[in-house]
């Protein structure tokens, strides 16, 4: 039996209350494409971070060529030939394509001056290999490149000599079908060259098409490791979720009330002519690829991005926010995508985080009433069953699911008419996810108008009453839930992408 290029043995890693990895063992072999699947928060990214030397496992070890190694830094991992291509490529906008590819490995003439000729030659070779020599030139600055092209640069960067294990973290999430196929050709060639490949994706069909083997993770554990031939899509989903997906949602008819939120031709710097209405008791889904402009619609609604043209109304009243404070005052709540950066004060207590949006309910003449504050916060925290030792606990110490419940509790305390949810279950484990889904459904039952932005298809299809699909800053189509399938959404999300690409590249 041949020795795997890289293997992990019994690796565990814990962050605060969250067991991110639980005794995980996987081997990655020469010339083999191993798919790694699992829901968000299942531990895939943490495993990648361990492999690239960002995180040190609490226990267990990593072996390269059968020898235990200390991947104490990204540099050490890089030296061992392990390269991870991230979903959000780190491209330095002010540098050229060639410089971005070869950063850290730029040859100098006489030890001082940039050897531009050498740089150009080497990058042209790569650009030709990838068949993108017509859209990217070595001397071009990376400022304003499309996500797909940035990703490509990141891949070329990783392909520098010495790569033994290449991991792709959802590489196709922002690629068109054509671009994805081109990427697959590259990956197959890498495989033929004897590189071990890890391929992380939510697109199961791609995995069946591309991978040799599939490792499934759930709640930090490896729950399956099987040859791809032994799996089909349904089985993969069941392994990832731990139960049939349909159980997570309870679809029922809700009586719709009056229009709570209306957008008409809303245009900002990043979205174009967005029109839709959301009624009381309705969940409107916003689907589309990463970067299609869904979050930007939310930003426009809450007053983060100024309106260039178009109109909005809340509860029938004209609404033109200049600041998020206007949105809060008008009865709009936002559950942002990034909990740590946008939603919660991680260092501060659950109590502070919940009462932040209801100063009027916990104070008199501007002075706090601690008693009222504690009572109010405790009530909402208990109602949403936030697992915390006390409302004085720092929010950062809670698990992702409980953090998200704190964000919901905050808006529950305020009682908004419209709630915008941007990737509400990102980084949350499966159990908590189901709870969040039930919560969203009950909020709609109570008559809230809900806008749901999600990249997770089952969630979008399972919760939304209708799905608006976005592409390149516009709404490219609308599907009632009865017609919304993964295929239908993707078809709209990728429709006539050529034009979009040309626009983005130019």
């Amino acid at each position, binding site marked *: 039996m041949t020795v795997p290029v890289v293997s992990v043995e019994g690796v565990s890693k814990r962050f605060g209350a969250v067991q991110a990895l639980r005794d995980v063992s996987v081997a990655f072999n020469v010339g083999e494409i191993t798919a790694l699947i699992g829901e968000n928060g299942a531990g895939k990214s943490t495993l990648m971070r361990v492999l690239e030397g960002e995180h040190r496992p609490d226990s267990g070890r990593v072996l390269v060529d059968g020898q235990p190694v200390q991947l104490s830094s990204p540099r050490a991992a890089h030296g061992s030939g392990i390269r991870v291509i991230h979903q959000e490529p780190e491209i330095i906008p002010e540098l050229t394509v060639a410089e971005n590819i070869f950063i850290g490995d730029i040859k100098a003439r006489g030890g001082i001056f940039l050897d531009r000729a050498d740089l150009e030659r080497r990058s042209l070779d790569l650009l030709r290999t990838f068949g993108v020599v017509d859209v990217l030139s070595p001397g071009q600055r990376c400022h304003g490149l499309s996500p797909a092209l940035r990703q490509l640069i990141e891949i070329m960067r990783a392909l520098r000599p010495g790569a033994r294990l290449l991991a792709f973290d959802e590489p196709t999430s922002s690629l068109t079908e054509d671009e994805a196929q081109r990427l697959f050709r590259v990956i197959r060639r890498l495989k033929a060259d004897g590189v071990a490949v890890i391929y992380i994706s939510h697109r199961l069909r791609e995995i069946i098409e591309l991978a040799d083997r599939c490792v499934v993770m759930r709640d930090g554990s490896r729950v399956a490791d099987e040859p791809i031939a032994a799996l089909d899509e349904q089985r993969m989903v069941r392994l990832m979720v731990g139960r049939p997906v349909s159980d997570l949602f309870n679809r029922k008819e809700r009586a719709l009330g009056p229009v709570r939120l209306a957008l008409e031709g809303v245009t900002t710097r990043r979205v174009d002519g967005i029109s839709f209405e959301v009624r009381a008791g309705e969940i409107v889904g916003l689907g589309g690829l990463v970067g299609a402009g869904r979050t930007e619609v939310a930003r426009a609604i809450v007053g983060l991005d100024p309106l260039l043209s178009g109109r909005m109304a809340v509860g029938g009243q004209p609404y033109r926010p200049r600041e998020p*404070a206007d949105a*809060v005052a008008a009865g709009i709540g936002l559950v942002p995508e990034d909990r740590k950066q946008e939603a919660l004060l991680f260092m501060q207590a659950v109590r502070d985080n919940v009462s932040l949006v209801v100063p009027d309910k916990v104070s008199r003449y501007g002075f706090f009433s601690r008693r009222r504050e504690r009572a109010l916060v405790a009530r909402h925290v208990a109602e949403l069953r936030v697992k915390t030792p006390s409302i004085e606990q720092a929010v950062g110490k809670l698990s992702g699911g409980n953090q998200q419940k704190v964000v919901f509790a905050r808006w529950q305390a305020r009682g908004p008419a419209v709630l915008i949810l941007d990737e509400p279950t990102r980084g949350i484990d499966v159990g908590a996810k189901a709870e969040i889904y039930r919560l969203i459904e009950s909020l709609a039952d109570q008559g809230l108008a809900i806008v749901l932005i999600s990249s997770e298809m089952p969630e979008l299809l399972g919760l939304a009453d209708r799905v608006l699909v976005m592409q390149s800053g516009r709404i490219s189509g609308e599907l009632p839930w009865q017609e919304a399938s993964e295929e239908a959404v993707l078809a709209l999300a990728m429709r006539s992408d050529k034009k979009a690409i040309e626009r983005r590249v130019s």
Partner: protein
Amino acid sequence: MTDTATAGRERAPASLFGRIGAQNISLLIALVVLLAIFGVLRPDVFFTPRNLINIGLAVTILGILAMAQTVVIVSGGLDISVGSIVGLSTMVLAVAAQETGSIPAGILAGLLAGLLAGAVNGLIIVYGPVNAVIATLGTMSAFRGLAYLMNNGNSIPITGDSLRALGIGTLFGLPFAIWLLIAAMAAFIVFTRETVVGRNIYALGGNPTVARLAGIPIRRYQISIYAMSGFAAAVAGLVLASRTMSGQPASGSQGLELEAITAAILGGCALQGGKGTIIGAMLGVLIIGVLNNGMILTSVPTFYQLLAKGALLILAVIVQERQRARSGE
């Protein structure tokens, strides 16, 4: 769900302003050590009531500035123009008192000048937008220049018994200025701990994006915070003017920003914002005050005093960064 929080068994409210404990205890220890050292070196003078009141008077100006600076730093900013605003406000006070012949009018003008100067800082920072350090570095020079311009670089004597009374008057054996400091301290403590606005400032400094999305009008907050800082500097200027009976463009106010920032950071303010307490800052102020007084009593030359104060600021930041690294924040 057994571990779900319920209203019945909450601990006392603490966390946001909590952890007052550990850091302040180490500051208290440092203060006691300093007192012991100077007490031993100058047993004849150091612990006399007169000297202790001297220390109290010396820290009045610094204390007011350090508390305001604490609020600014907690909000995620920094104001290094406060020393210049102190100087400027004394000059405005002197000129206005001279022109109108009325001390109250002069005081009012001085306070207004400080408020205005602070608001200018806030407007530059918010609408420039300009980084707070750079904006107030610029106005530190500009306001000082303005103060010099008002009388060609010279000080202006002020005559008026009401101002003198303010400077030398006492109540229950303590100078007015010390009472002013105590009142300011009470106001700042209540403001930061018990009011919605105060708490929102911690949120703003902790994460401006979160604060903004939660509906806090952060621009208005920032402008008001710098205006408050400018006003506090003018109050400090009033104390200075009442003691020197003059408008002083530079003397007595230069270098105050360094001491105020040092005190705030000694007291546990995180330069990243979102963390810091008034009590901590006041302990920092006392440490600096005792150090200044002790170094004078033990005849340490001025130049060494400057060296020591600079080193203290850097040391305070190093200690804080180490703690931060250790607690893994």
